[in-house]
């Protein structure tokens, strides 16, 4: 099964019953598969007029109590940015899949890129934190999509699956476990409560969510708001709200951050990679080990929040780290922020996977 189908099946297994999207290469198979599968399970597939409408529609549907998703690629992802901020400030769970292609602009629609990694972190205006997964296999397109839903529902925030064209279009064996073996987090919904009910209780990381039509009479606001959901221009309210929005992620890094180590224990040089590039990196590292080099691989399964502790640990032991990516140094940037050793970025233009030789050559020189 191809990666995009695995992603769609993962969404359905996670309980997604509402998809709104706009077709765009190389993500369209997700929409196509959802349009066939969702009605079979009583769900809704809505093809919107553009990506702005798509993200707005999933936020609306999420507020009606559904698990929701959209999928897109670079240009559509850019269009979604403003309303990703709406999802953040209104604490609305949703999953956004970005199948990265070459950019900027229309770029290389059918070819791979990894250059939306900073946009996903900082693309919407204002201060916020994000959770983003970077799958590197067809199986992870399924598994991490399920996980993205679980995180979105628990943290009440948009969660991203930062896939790429290679993984999305690659065919591989996919094992879909029986439903009882898939961990699925259900949203904590607010029970009907009295006048003391605070729909945006900033004192809790994860306050239960008030769903439309369930009698809460909640005001959900894109303006800076207080615990009642009422808009406020007071500085202390702004501070409380932002501390909450940012804190609910920063206070829970150990339950979010996920990395994979390959022979990093004794490694003098560590490659730090994510997504499809991590497969080139693994190939190069294995070859270098065979040639006797003490090298390892740290794979960032969650590029965001950035795995600070794990990267710092690597940086304290290794004499150099190598960061290959299909962009001009986006994740290299936070790596540099958190290590004192030498950092070599392998910058690869959009359009093809970083060849293992290119990474091997860099390892050989160190």
């Amino acid at each position, binding site marked *: 099964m191809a990666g995009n189908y695995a992603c769609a099946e993962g969404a359905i297994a996670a309980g997604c019953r509402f998809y709104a999207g706009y077709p765009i290469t190389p993500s369209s198979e997700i929409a196509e598969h959802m349009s066939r599968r969702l009605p079979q399970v009583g769900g809704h597939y809505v093809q919107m007029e553009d990506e702005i409408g798509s993200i707005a529609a999933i936020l609306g549907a999420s507020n009606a109590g559904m698990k929701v998703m959209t999928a897109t690629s670079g240009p559509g992802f850019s269009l979604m940015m403003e309303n990703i901020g709406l999802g953040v400030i209104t604490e609305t769970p949703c999953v956004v899949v970005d199948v990265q292609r070459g950019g900027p602009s229309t770029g290389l629609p059918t070819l791979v890129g990894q250059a939306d990694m900073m946009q996903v972190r900082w693309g919407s205006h204002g201060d916020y934190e994000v959770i983003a997964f970077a799958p590197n296999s067809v199986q992870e397109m399924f598994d991490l999509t399920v996980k993205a839903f679980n995180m979105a529902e628990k943290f009440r925030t948009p969660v991203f699956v930062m896939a790429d064209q290679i993984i999305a279009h690659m065919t*591989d064996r996919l094992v879909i476990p029986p439903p009882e073996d898939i961990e699925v987090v259900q949203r904590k919904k607010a029970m009907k409560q009295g006048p003391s009910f605070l729909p945006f209780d900033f004192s809790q990381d994860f306050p239960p969510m008030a769903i439309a039509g369930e009698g809460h009479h909640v005001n959900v606001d894109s303006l800076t708001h207080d615990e009642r959901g009422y808009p406020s221009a007071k500085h202390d309210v702004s501070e409380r709200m932002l501390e909450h929005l940012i804190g609910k992620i920063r206070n829970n890094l150990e339950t979010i951050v996920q990395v994979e180590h390959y022979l990093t224990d004794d490694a003098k040089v560590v490659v730090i990679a994510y997504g499809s590039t991590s497969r080139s990196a693994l190939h190069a590292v294995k070859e270098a080990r065979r040639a006797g080099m003490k090298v390892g691989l740290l794979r960032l399964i969650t590029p965001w929040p950035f795995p600070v502790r794990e990267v710092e640990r690597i940086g304290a032991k290794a004499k150099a780290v190598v960061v290959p990516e299909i962009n001009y140094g986006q994740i290299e940037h936070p790596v540099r922020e958190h290590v004192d050793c030498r950092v070599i970025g392998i910058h690869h233009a959009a359009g093809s996977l970083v060849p293992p030789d290119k990474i091997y050559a860099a390892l050989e020189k160190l």
Partner: protein
Amino acid sequence: MIRREIRLQGLGGQGIITAGHLIGEAVSLHDRKEAVMTEDYSPYITGGWSRADIVISDEKIDYPLVSRPDILVAMSQDGFDDNWEATAPDSTVIVEAGLVNTNAVKDRKIFAVPALSIAEELGKKVVANIVVLGFLTATSRVASREAMEAAIVTRYPKAAELNRQAFDRGYALSPKEAP
């Protein structure tokens, strides 16, 4: 680790992508080894080029793309011209006899298979890819015969008999099957 890279390239409509899927399914679902496939095609549905790349291995596959095909199947002249230089001298190169001229290349082991004319004899041109799969299975052992047959039958239960004939004809052509 035995990693093998297979590239199939031909024209849209020849069933190149399908053949790639069948190899992948035989290896992955029936032989229970590892296989990943990537595909590429020109924007035209019929008549343009079409390519399926499969990597197979006994263990988990890291780099998923084909860089030096151990097996090249070229069902069109372009498919041969574009790719033969990427193969190694000991790679297996299979070409469609009716469409590909390989005279210019001397230092490769090339098998010319008349898959299209066999398919026409069988009454359906679309089974040329199955003829090739038969030949490929016998010649290269990328997948077991049982696995490949199971993959084909699972995908096309209604055309089982025709596909079996096509597969057998291709299989029998292989020099490795010669008595």
